[in-house]
């Protein structure tokens, strides 16, 4: 039978305790018994000695040793008495009980006439307490009684042996008692332990049979109900998990179907740029099977895509680029990083797990755009040539009318005067409209050139201050004419930028003239600031402002603020589109902040360190 640990510990405890008790009791009782026996023997010896002494005086005086001998023999029978002898006043031993003869040591002792008790050790004879009692104060002699010390030891050990036997029996009894008691406690504990082990192995059907009403019974019941609870919870979660899995599987099926059947290509890469998902459209676009792409670096799909992914993995923003697809097709790739909501600060990727790249085949759109630009260019060119002729002839006609016809007419004739006046007016309208059309065509040509990338940039180190002041000079008379002040606020000692000066002047003129155009009262303010690694230029007005929904549109081609049907268009509507093209070509940005009815502020930036974009963009187009 397995001995429980509890019992083993208890047993050890008992043994230890008993060992202490054994030793303590043994030492104490041994000492006590020894002391008592010695005391007892001393008093016994003293009693015997004085008894002999008191009754032997006369006989010794009678010189009757035999009577003395008879008396001392009598006392020799008393337990513990080893010898008795009587010395007379001369120191001669007149009676003794020694066999076979008087030891030498005793002869010595006999000469010492001293009452009391002393220890005597006689070789081959033993250890004794020599009790001396005087007869008639020593005048007649002395009685010596030898009490056996060896008997004391023997008796002591005898008692100790009995005591230890008794203790040992008690010990055995205690161990048995402890065994039964501990067993009663440990048996249910063992059962509980087994039960707990089964629970640990998820065997919730296991049974434990403890019916006692003590703490262990309580524990058993608690464990039972705990097991039931756990079982219930487990079952519930199992079902919930199944539902969740089914739901997830459904969702996955949906998503997979959607992704795989998307017209756009979809590629997912991890944070190291390794492709881990590709849809059907994407594999068609790159002319590679899914298996050829998964697990490979995005590099295999071209330099542009690789660059895009790397950029995407470093930012949370959406980045895009155009890429070449198979069969000389062109695609637009949009990449967005996948980011965990919670991430530890130390992680290098800052929670970015990878990137999703969506690719759309834009070959057709590109072609349409190209055709449109080409069309506009051709049309504008074809329009401008005859228009120049028309305007030339109109000016010639007007000159001839003014110089040759008008002086010959009688202007007193009111009717004729009216007609002349009308003709003059019409001439002016034809001229201004002609100029406007020319301007429009120029702008269209301009933007076409910009869009088609056929512009040649005259890049050199220029000062923004010069750009702004030059632009203002060109428009200053218009401001004076309209009576609107224009404030220039240029930060001193702005660094030089590498840019096309004429083009930037064109942008600033556009912005200032727009500001003036829409401002009836108040002012226009142009500012230039160094903002980190770029120069920020703003043009502020106190005009009508731009509605929120218009803000993005105004940078598109042929868009102007206000109702185009009601209001007479003042300009070509291409100014901001051109400005945008120019600024972006310089690697900067252009945007507007506005509050309707209060005014607008147009901003653009020119980076100090020129990126290669300008040239690259030029190349890629």
């Amino acid at each position, binding site marked *: 039978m397995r001995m429980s640990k509890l019992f083993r510990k208890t047993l050890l405890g008992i043994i230890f305790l008993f060992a202490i008790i054994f030793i303590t009791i043994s030492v104490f009782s041994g000492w006590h018994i020894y002391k008592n026996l010695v005391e007892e023997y001393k008093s016994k010896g003293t009693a015997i000695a004085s008894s002999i002494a008191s009754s032997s005086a006369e006989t010794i005086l*009678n*010189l*009757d*040793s*035999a*009577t*003395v*001998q*008879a008396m001392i*023999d*009598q006392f020799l*029978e008393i337990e513990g008495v080893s010898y008795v002898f009587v010395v007379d006043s001369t120191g001669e031993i007149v*009676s*003794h*009980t*020694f*066999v*076979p*003869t*008087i030891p030498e040591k005793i002869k010595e002792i006999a000469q010492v006439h001293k009452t009391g008790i002393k220890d005597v050790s006689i070789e081959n004879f033993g250890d004794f307490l020599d009790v001396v009692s005087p007869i008639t104060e020593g005048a007649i002699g002395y009685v010596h009684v030898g009490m056996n010390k060896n008997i004391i030891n023997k008796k002591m050990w005898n008692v100790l042996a009995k005591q230890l036997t008794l203790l040992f029996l008690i010990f055995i009894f205690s161990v048995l008692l402890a065994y039964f008691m501990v067993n009663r406690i440990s048996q249910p504990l063992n059962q509980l332990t087994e039960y707990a082990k089964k629970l640990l192995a998820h065997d919730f059907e296991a049974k434990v049979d403890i019916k006692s009403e003590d703490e262990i019974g309580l524990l058993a019941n608690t464990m039972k109900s705990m097991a039931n609870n756990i079982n219930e919870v487990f079952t519930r979660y199992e079902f919930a998990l199944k539902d969740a899995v089914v739901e997830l599987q459904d969702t996955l099926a949906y998503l997979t179907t959607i992704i795989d059947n998307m017209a756009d290509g979809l590629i997912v890469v991890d944070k190291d740029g390794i492709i881990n998902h590709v849809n059907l459209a994407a594999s068609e676009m790159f002319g590679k099977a899914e298996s050829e792409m998964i697990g490979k670096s995005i590099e295999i799909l071209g330099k542009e895509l690789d660059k895009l992914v790397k950029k995407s993995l470093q930012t949370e923003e959406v980045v895009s680029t155009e890429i070449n697809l198979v069969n000389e097709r062109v695609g637009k790739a949009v990449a967005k990083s996948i980011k965990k909501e919670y991430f530890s600060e130390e992680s290098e990727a800052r929670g970015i797990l990878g990137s999703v790249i969506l690719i759309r085949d834009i070959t057709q759109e590109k072609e349409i755009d190209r055709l449109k630009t080409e069309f506009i260019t051709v049309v504008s060119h074809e329009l401008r040539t005859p228009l120049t002729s028309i305007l030339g002839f109109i000016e010639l006609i007007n000159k001839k009318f003014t110089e040759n016809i008008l002086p010959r007419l009688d202007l007193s004739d009111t009717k004729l005067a009216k007609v002349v006046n009308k003709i003059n007016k019409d001439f002016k309208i034809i001229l201004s409209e002609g100029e406007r059309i020319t301007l429009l065509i120029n702008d269209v040509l301009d933007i076409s050139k910009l869009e088609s990338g056929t512009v040649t940039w005259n890049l050199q180190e220029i000062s923004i201050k010069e750009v702004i002041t030059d632009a203002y000079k060109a428009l200053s008379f218009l401001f004076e004419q309209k009576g609107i002040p224009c404030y220039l606020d240029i930060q001193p000692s702005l660094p030089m930028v590498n840019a096309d000066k004429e083009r930037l002047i064109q942008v600033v003129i556009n912005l200032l003239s727009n500001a003036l155009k829409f401002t009836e009262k108040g002012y226009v303010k142009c500012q230039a600031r160094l903002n980190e690694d770029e120069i920020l230029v703003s043009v502020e007005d106190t005009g009508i402002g731009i509605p929120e929904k218009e803000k993005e549109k105004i940078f598109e081609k042929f868009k102007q603020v206000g109702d185009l049907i009601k209001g007479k268009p003042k300009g070509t509507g291409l100014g901001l589109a051109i400005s945008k093209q120019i600024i972006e070509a310089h690697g900067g940005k252009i945007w507007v902040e506005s509050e309707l009815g209060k005014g607008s502020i147009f901003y653009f930036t020119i980076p100090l360190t020129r990126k290669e974009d300008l040239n690259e963009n030029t190349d890629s187009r």
Partner: protein
Amino acid sequence: MSGAILKFFLVVCLFLIPSFVFAEKQNDTIVLGMSAAFTGPTRGLGIELYRGAMAYFEHVNRNGGIYGRKITIKAYDDGYNPIPAIKNTIKLIEEDKVFTLFNYVGTPTVARILPILKSYSNRNIYLFFPFTGALPHRKPPYDEYVFNLRASYEQETSGLVENFIKIGRKKIGIFYQADAYGRSGWDGVRKTLAKYGSKIVAEATYKRGAKYSESFKKQVEILKNAGVDAVISVGAYAACAGFIRDARDAGWDIPIANVSFAGSEFLINLLLEEEAKTGKKYTHNLIHSQVVPSYEDMSLEAVREYRTLMDIYNPMPPSDLIEADYKPLKYSFVSFEGFLNAKVIVEVLKRLGKKPERKNIKKIVESIKNLDIGIDEKISFSPYNHQALNKVYYTTYKNGKFVPIKDWNEWRK
């Protein structure tokens, strides 16, 4: 206790059946109480003393008794130990209502019953003729309750010492029983030596009850190493024989003298057995002092009578008192002493008249003067002398007999 009493009662009844047969009344018998060694190493003394006394009592009883009364001995065994002796004495007085105490054996036993006699002095309990030569019952305060026939150990040892000194053996050692008996002999030797201005050269003791089979080599060694010229041995026959055996075995041939209590025949018998066994000689150079004349001396009337009566009656103690293996001696100094004791007590009982009363005992005994009991010495008692005989006889064992020593020069140094 009651069982013991019952058993005892039955024994008494059995013992008394013959008395009832021959006598009609209880008081037709004079009962004498005896406590002695009937078992153990000194059993021979008790048994032979009883036999010698009973031989004479039988003779008296068969010849009309004392005024028609028969004499019997109520005997108990004390094994030569004081405590049984005390118990026996009380029993004899209280239960058996004995007339007087008679034929006790041994000094340690007798020395211890003396206070009992004193305590019963109002009832006139006397002890007659104990088989011991010790002083305690020969000196106050107990001498008045005891009557002795034999000479004292002091007289025996004194004679031995004087004789040894005469032949030039002045360095005397003593071997004795470590009790009152031995001490009596020791005291006698010491006092005699003191007269000559010398002391006991060496002494060795043994414990009472020692058996012949025990070793006495240590005692021999002690005395031999002390260079003694002669050894006086005061002991029981078993121990004395053992001592002689070990002395002779050690090649020590000095004269060894034994006192009367040794029971010469028993001692010699043990040594003869040993001689038969080993082929060595053990019985030479031994001196035995006796307190009665030799039973070989046919010139004495008492010896003749003793031999006759012993031959006729050869009495034995009750069989439940003795051990079956005991072989009685035909004659011995001990039984002869018992016989003489019996002769004197019979005379005392006769003198007490038809109606003996204990209160008269002392007066009657003390009035005996010059009584002839058939030996070479007359019996006299007086209030100051409770010992009748004073003569000591020295014998030695030669040619299978104890013969009186005529010339001590045999052992001259």
